[in-house]
């Protein structure tokens, strides 16, 4: 009997393992200008993976300078590629950038994190997390020892970031937080964290530079950074049901591939990284257990017979009615009504011409014509 009990307890413990009920992602690209194409591609690639694994746009706060896709220097407008030979367009039709261009500032970033946002801000620009949220924070750009540069005009220091996370902890705005940073000397950014339940990864140690991966000769800039490239390759193998854990993520980019030494910090994290699933942060995996049997929750209602499930009629797939044929409207050309000169004009003109002709040459020529 105690074995079954502990088995149930294990199962129950398994079920409520991570303690989170929703997932959020804050993805920040802190650079602008064309030659920082790779930072935008980094952020958009993480955005794509996170969406693929289930986090919806309403739970993603994406901060980009967004000046790549429509940049006059972009030979393929409206695209941002993350693979050379332009294999993978991470921009696409459905990217939702929440903070774009000059809105990506240190102040806005800290306000998003701490929730101190002016009342009129739309929902898409807020991090509406609660104490059961797991938040993924990904930052990329140019950084140094203890700071990260925002849009070439200001910096955020590691102390400010640590204090922001402490504010989040005190306001119960996260359950667990995964912080990933892909910049030069990235490890310096997580050195000062002091709030519990934070796990951090960085692409390079203090004193090292993070390097970019591959240039594309057609576009003319480097498309991705190495660390994020290999993280992405790793994430491509993750699907919502995978059981890969954080230790694998720590091994993602060895020095041979990344040239810099990636680092991580887990001392503030309460669970063992071995037990932390990738999908705890990167995906939005709902705990759903499917059962075919009916379970009676109220013992007094056991008198009700469970009805047999009705056969579902094979209905034809439902779809929305075509309310607005947008494509037709956009491509409609204005109806060409042909203009014709009025009959009176033509008549008058030719009558005049004939009159002049006969006045000059005389009526006697008429018999030569007819």
């Amino acid at each position, binding site marked *: 009997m105690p074995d079954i009990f502990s088995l149930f307890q294990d199962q129950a413990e398994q079920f409520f393992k991570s303690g989170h009920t929703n997932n959020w992602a804050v993805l920040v690209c802190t650079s602008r200008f064309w030659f920082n194409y790779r930072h935008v591609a980094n952020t958009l690639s993480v955005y794509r993976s996170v969406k693929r694994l289930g986090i919806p746009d309403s739970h993603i706060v994406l901060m980009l300078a967004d000046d790549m896709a429509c940049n006059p220097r972009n030979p393929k407008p409206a695209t941002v590629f993350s693979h050379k030979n332009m294999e993978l367009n991470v921009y696409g039709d459905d990217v939702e950038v929440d903070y774009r261009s000059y809105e990506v500032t240190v102040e806005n970033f800290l306000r998003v994190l701490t929730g101190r946002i002016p009342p009129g801000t739309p929902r898409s620009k807020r991090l509406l997390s609660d104490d059961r949220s797991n938040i993924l924070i990904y930052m990329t750009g140019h950084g140094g020892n203890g700071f990260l540069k925002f849009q070439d005009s200001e910096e955020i220091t590691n102390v400010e970031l640590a204090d922001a996370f402490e504010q989040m902890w005190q306001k119960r705005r996260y359950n667990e937080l995964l912080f990933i940073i892909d910049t030069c000397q990235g490890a310096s950014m997580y050195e000062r964290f002091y709030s519990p339940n934070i796990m951090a990864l960085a692409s390079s140690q203090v004193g090292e530079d993070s390097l970019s991966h591959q240039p594309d000769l057609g576009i003319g800039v480097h498309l991705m950074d190495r660390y994020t490239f290999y993280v992405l390759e790793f994430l491509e193998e993750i699907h919502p049901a995978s059981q890969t854990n954080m230790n694998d993520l720590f091994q993602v980019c060895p020095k041979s591939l990344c040239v810099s030494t990636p680092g991580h910090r887990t001392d503030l994290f309460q669970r063992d990284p071995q037990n932390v699933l990738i999908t705890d942060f990167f995906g939005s995996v709902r705990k759903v257990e499917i059962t075919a049997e009916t379970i009676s929750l109220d013992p007094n209602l056991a008198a009700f017979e469970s009805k047999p499930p009705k056969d579902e009629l094979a209905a034809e797939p439902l779809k929305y009615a075509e309310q607005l044929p947008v494509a037709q409207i956009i491509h409609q050309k204005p109806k060409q009504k042909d203009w014709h000169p009025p009959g009176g004009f033509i008549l008058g003109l030719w009558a005049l011409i004939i009159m002049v002709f006969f006045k*000059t040459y005389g009526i006697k020529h008429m018999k030569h014509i007819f």
Partner: protein
Amino acid sequence: MAAPLVLVILVAVTVRAVLYRSSLAAFISERVEVASPLNAWKRVVEGLALLDLGVSPYSGAIFHETPLIIYLFHFLIEYAELVFMITDVLTAIALYLAIQDFNKVVFKKQKLLIELDKYAPDVAELIRTPMEMHYIPLKVALFYLLNPYTVMSCVAKSTCTINNTVIAFFILATIKGSAFLSAVFLALATYQSLYPLTLFAPALLYLLQRQFIPVKLKSKSFWLYTMQYAALYLCSLVVIICLSFFLLNSWDFIPSVYGFILSVPDLTPNIGLFWYFFAEMFEHFSLFFVCVFQINVFFYTIPLAVKLKEHPVFFMFVQIAIISIFKSYPTVGDIALYMAFLPVWSHLYRFLRNIFILSCVLIVCSLLFPVLWHLWIYAGSANSNFYYAITLTFNIGQILLISDYFYAFLRREYYLTHGLYLTRQDGTEAMLVLK
């Protein structure tokens, strides 16, 4: 003489056809020297497209062609290139026939004056012979058709070629002596662009000469004929304008065409003198200076009529040249028309003083136009002053050309009646000065 003319026409048509098919056609039609806001092909197409969409083409500031052009191109727009080539050919043929007739008239008059002993005894070398005059019509047609200005104008499909055709037909009708046709074509030419109005005077003088009516202010027959011709001209002009009303059922075209020509609102650079002045001018002076500039075109008619009343065709040449220099939106197509006449006065060569420097000025300026345009607009290392300088130099060259020919013509006339070797009272050689 028909065969060489046909050959010249064939060569000209080939040159134009080749240029139409090459990539230069697009480049040339963009040039401001060739296409002005009045006669650019792009605007014709735009106006016709607006008409197809149910909007009056005169409602914006883009279309400044007359309704007859709308009518013409409504049916012929797919054959536009053919139309322009045919108009060029027609102009050349009209000029050819006109100059042929004119030569006959000149020769007849010369014979008359010789028999009447009006010439001085030692001017034998100035007398023109039919031999030397034989190839002049062909040269005129050649000058018109193969002039680079004409070719560019035709390739750019500028409606200036149509204006030139109408003026050429007017000249043909005048020289043939038909007052009615001459009035009709003059009315058409005035209707197309306003300035051929000034050609009324030379045409009248020529027709009077042909009818042997002396130009005396007291003579009744002079006034009768003048009134008849003026009545014919004004009636045809009124009829054409009223007919144009019925094309679009509105008088919109009058401010759009004539108001535009007279008030010069569009200051796109061209080879004329108006744009720079009005670009730099303050608003409250612009009305005054527009009036001054426009009067400048019409002003030379009366003095020239007084001086050149015996030589109306030369007067016509000078008047056409003045129109094409001083009009509000000149293009190289207008210049081509009066340059076609230069072979007619080739016998004046020995009296021309500046012909070398003027031809250099004109050629160099024509070559510098695109260079300075590029420097101004594309390279940004020049500004409008540079382009205006070339415009000024070019126009000065043209004015000097005309005044040179004028001087040479008058000098020859003086020598014819007073002898070649002029001596002063004390026997030393005298110099003729144009005062």
